[in-house]
């Protein structure tokens, strides 16, 4: 068997973009994986192969190509079921991404289930995609949106949850499994236990977790789960919403149109079976195929190995970054409670200025509010710099990042 170390050494060869240089021939050091990941040849080729050899619309036509396209599309559903441990493939709905998945729930589940005076609970470290759909819904329904607060260590204050649950008015608790800014891994088990005891359904935003660790939905026991393909080596524009069947059966359709119907008459329509009731129109077939390849690729490496590799990188990065004078890392330093996402500020230098200066060294880090302005307010900062890792990153990447901060220090006379 291949050792883990050599396994990860060989991975870079699969990613053509990592072979290119940027800005005056600097090798690309890509550290914006919480935003989106690069794609291996296996994924790129599967999409090309689909268009070159199998392209047809799915589910209806009887000819050979349509059968192949349908098979390619539907086989990804089975791969997803295995990947996140779901027994029933009918519970898996293809959407554009996590954002669309959460909006789908807010619309198709939220509208018939949320009433005036009800409470929806989210957290202070959510991405805007797990805040704004709930603001829209609660405003429309005259319901309330409440937040589980975050302590200075970047962890949720679960006493807040108890307080809201005690009102008896909470209809949904929604939270990310890993913060896209701090990397904090949420104590989902405890939250779900509390919610189950109170009879309250839970939604998990898995966009940051699914790409980086083994996720087992059967063990988690939530009611809704969403994630995106492009953050896990797959193409943009494809994501997954999983909903427990008993809940899915109480939901209205999201979009009306082709493929989601059983019979359409002039003034009434009956719906197609699950999950097709929620997949109106010709779906993003090619990218579903690409997502299937991404899952194959990650399965081959093994999600436990992925997590192990990122723990190693994160530990190294925290150690090296902590040695930089004036650099402040946000969130917990307990590696077991965080993923490979490190947000930091460097003295009084604005993150945009940090990002621009180190871009000259070929380093891609994100700067800004990371679509988490509620969290920025809580941290009392306008923005942070964020480095986030994936399977193809190395300790060399981190060394280059740390060295580049010397240039920032020089320019800003720190």
């Amino acid at each position, binding site marked *: 068997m291949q050792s883990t170390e050599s396994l990860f050494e060989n991975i870079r060869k699969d990613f053509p973009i990592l072979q290119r240089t940027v800005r005056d021939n600097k090798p690309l050091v890509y550290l914006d994986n919480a935003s989106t990941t690069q794609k291996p040849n296996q994924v790129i080729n599967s999409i090309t192969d689909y268009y070159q050899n199998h392209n047809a619309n799915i589910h209806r036509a009887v000819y050979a190509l349509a059968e192949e396209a349908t098979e390619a599309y539907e086989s990804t559903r089975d791969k997803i079921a295995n990947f996140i441990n779901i027994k029933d493939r009918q519970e898996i709905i293809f959407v554009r991404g996590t954002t669309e998945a959460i909006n789908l729930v807010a619309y198709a589940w939220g509208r018939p289930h949320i009433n005036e005076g009800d409470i929806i609970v989210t957290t202070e470290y959510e991405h805007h995609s797990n805040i704004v759909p709930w603001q829209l819904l609660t405003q429309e329904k005259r319901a309330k949106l409440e937040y589980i607060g975050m302590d200075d260590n970047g962890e949720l204050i679960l006493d807040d949850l108890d307080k809201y649950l005690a009102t008896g008015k909470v209809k949904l608790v929604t939270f990310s499994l890993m913060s896209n800014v701090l990397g904090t891994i949420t104590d989902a088990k405890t939250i779900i236990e509390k919610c189950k005891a109170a009879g309250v359904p839970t939604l998990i935003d898995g966009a940051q977790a699914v790409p980086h660790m083994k996720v087992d939905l059967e063990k988690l026991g939530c009611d809704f789960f969403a994630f995106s393909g492009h953050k896990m080596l797959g193409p943009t524009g494809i994501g997954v919403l999983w909903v427990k069947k008993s809940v899915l059966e109480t939901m209205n359709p999201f979009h009306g149109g082709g493929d989601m119907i059983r019979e359409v008459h002039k003034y009434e329509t009956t719906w197609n079976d699950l999950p097709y009731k929620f997949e109106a129109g010709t779906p993003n077939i090619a990218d579903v195929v690409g997502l299937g390849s991404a899952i194959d690729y990650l399965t081959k490496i093994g999600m436990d190995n992925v997590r192990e590799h990122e723990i190693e990188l994160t530990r190294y990065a925290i150690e090296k970054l902590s040695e930089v004078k004036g650099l402040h890392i946000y969130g917990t330093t307990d590696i077991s409670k965080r993923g490979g996402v490190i947000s930091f500020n460097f003295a009084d230098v604005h993150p*945009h200025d940090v990002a621009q200066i180190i871009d000259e060294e070929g380093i891609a880090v994100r700067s800004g509010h990371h679509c988490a*302005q509620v969290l920025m307010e809580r941290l009392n900062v306008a923005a942070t710099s964020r480095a986030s890792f994936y399977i193809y990153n190395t300790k060399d990447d981190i060394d280059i990042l740390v060295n580049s901060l010397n240039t920032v220090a020089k320019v800003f006379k720190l």
Partner: protein
Amino acid sequence: MSSNADIYHEMIVDYSRNPINYGEIENHDVTFHDSNPLCGDSIDIDMKIDENKVTDIKFHGKGCAICMACSSVLTEITKGKSIDEARAIEKNDVLSELGLEHLQAVRIKCALLSLKVLKSALYTYIGKNLEDTSDVDKLKEEAANLY
């Protein structure tokens, strides 16, 4: 070709560390706030206007070095100008002062946020206080389409 990092010359760094005209004016005649949604830069401008002349101007907010330096330069340029002169201030009046004429597209909004806020403050003032408000819409459009 000069590299993008060259924009961080002495003047920009100094202005970002010690911004000029930074603060609030208590008895301002007009104030305006705006922000850049993608990066979170956020600027307020307060102005004191006497007899159609900007007698005092201050800004405050959060932003990168480019944003802070440009806000400093802009307020310096504006102070003492008549309303007509102030509204005639153009992008390059600010950018050239700091050698930022070739700033990449993604950062231009950092440099011009304060100019957008200034133009917005001016149309707000004109709309409220002057008899001839015929140009307000044009000024609004200028502010909206600055970058």
